[in-house]
């Protein structure tokens, strides 16, 4: 029980720290924001582990927040506290199971099953991006990246795979993109995901996130991380290509329609509509960021090591 409470409290303190940091340091680069969110999700379980195995023991008398006392106070409120709080935690866990765990298990790599082919136009685009990335000093990280055309009418583009990631671009998206500049922007965006850590890092962070599936603040941090990851890839892609408008235009082409409407079951339609609305909202934000790139103050970089030390330093004293 105390492990559970400690995780909750540390998640709360980490979220508070991050919110304050975002307010204090402005404007914050999407890549920095992504890395800070990553730290906020990963550090609490590590600090709890270190505390409970006694690797970094902190005497309880010096603790910043004495969790056992907060827990006692919560217990003393009885059902008035227990019922809403229990509903909140169960609901959060339910969201994790329904929206993340089950879809991951059930879909079990849909993209891998679709037919993929080598495409000369895609290869040329990736070659152009490689040259540009080389000029920016990030070429090595994507030098061995491969790209394939995916046999799907849906407008898809993704960095796929953990060990040997490849970029997949669907027929549907290729048909929608207006020119090679837009295609380059899309390819640069997917390659940027690899530069920013790739799917392996993301899956690792998701494992830490799933340990805290009950924590509403971790849910918020995870959702923010998904968006921040896209914004960071947009930022890196623009740094590589130097063409924010092409990426903005490609994004609008990609999410410009409702896609396939052949499935008429109520659940499928509802789910598709929810996804579409989320995509519209995300796309609006991303396009807004891209259009504002030219006349915005330069983002402030924050050292990742400093962030880890500061937050880790606090969390170890929350026990």
């Amino acid at each position, binding site marked *: 029980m105390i492990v559970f409470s400690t995780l909750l409290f540390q998640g709360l*303190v980490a979220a*508070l*720290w991050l919110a*304050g*940091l975002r307010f*204090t*340091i402005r404007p914050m680069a999407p890549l920095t924001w992504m890395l800070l969110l990553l730290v906020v999700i990963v550090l609490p379980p590590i600090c709890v582990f270190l505390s409970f195995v*006694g690797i970094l*023991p902190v*005497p*309880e*008398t010096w*603790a*910043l*927040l*004495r969790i*056992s*006392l*907060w827990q*006692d*106070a919560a217990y003393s409120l009885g059902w008035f506290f227990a019922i809403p709080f229990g509903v909140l935690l169960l609901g959060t866990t339910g969201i994790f199971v329904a929206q993340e765990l089950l879809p991951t298990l059930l879909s079990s790599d849909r993209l891998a099953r679709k037919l993929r082919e080598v495409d000369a136009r895609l290869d040329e685009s990736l070659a152009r991006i490689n040259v540009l990335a080389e000029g920016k000093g990030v070429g090595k990280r994507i030098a061995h990246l491969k790209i394939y055309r995916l046999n799907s009418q849906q407008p898809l583009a993704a960095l796929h795979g953990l060990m040997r990631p490849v970029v997949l671009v669907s027929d549907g998206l290729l048909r929608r993109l207006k020119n090679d500049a837009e295609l380059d922007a899309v390819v640069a965006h997917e390659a940027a995901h690899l530069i920013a850590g790739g799917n392996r890092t993301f899956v690792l962070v998701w494992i830490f996130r799933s340990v805290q599936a009950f924590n509403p603040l971790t849910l918020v941090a995870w959702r923010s991380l998904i968006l921040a990851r896209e914004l960071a890839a947009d930022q890196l892609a623009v740094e590589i290509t130097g063409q924010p408008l092409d990426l903005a235009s490609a994004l609008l082409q990609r999410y410009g329609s409702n896609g396939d409407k052949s499935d008429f079951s109520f659940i499928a339609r509802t789910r598709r509509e929810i996804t579409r609305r989320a995509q519209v909202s995300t796309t609006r934000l991303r396009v807004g960021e891209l259009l504002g790139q030219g006349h915005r103050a*330069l983002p*402030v*970089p*924050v*050292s990742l090591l*400093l*962030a880890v030390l*500061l*937050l880790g*330093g*606090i969390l170890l*004293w*929350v026990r």
Partner: protein
Amino acid sequence: MGQIVFRRLRAGLAALLWTMALVGGLYALDRSLWGERPIAGWQLVSSLDDAAKHVGPIHAPALLPQRFAWPPKQIWVNAETQGWWLEVAARDGVPVLLISGQLASPPAMKAMTGCLRGDCPPEWRSRSRLGQNGKRVFVLVRGTELELERILRGLGH
């Protein structure tokens, strides 16, 4: 280049200041709500001085055999019941001596509770004596009768 370094320093300083403010705020909130109340149940502390703050002076042995490593590997205190347990390990890290101020034990020591009443695991032996403050002290040793006798006799207070 200089501007980037300056902005990085400024951001680092802002992060540091905000972190310090948060630490101060959380500490003040916790202490203003709960004061310096003793923490319920058993807790590990880092030193005998720290333990004394919770449960008063602790009976530390004046003399220990060479093979024992001092200070104690673990110090458990219970501020509510004024209980304390010391676990001393041999130089190879294996626990060889337990000293307790009461029969109740922290969860980590549950397996040795029977030994306080004479039902000890193989190689272990136990004995108790009344301290000068009138409280009983229990000594559990993985060693010889002579070692047990000497440690018991050398306990302070």
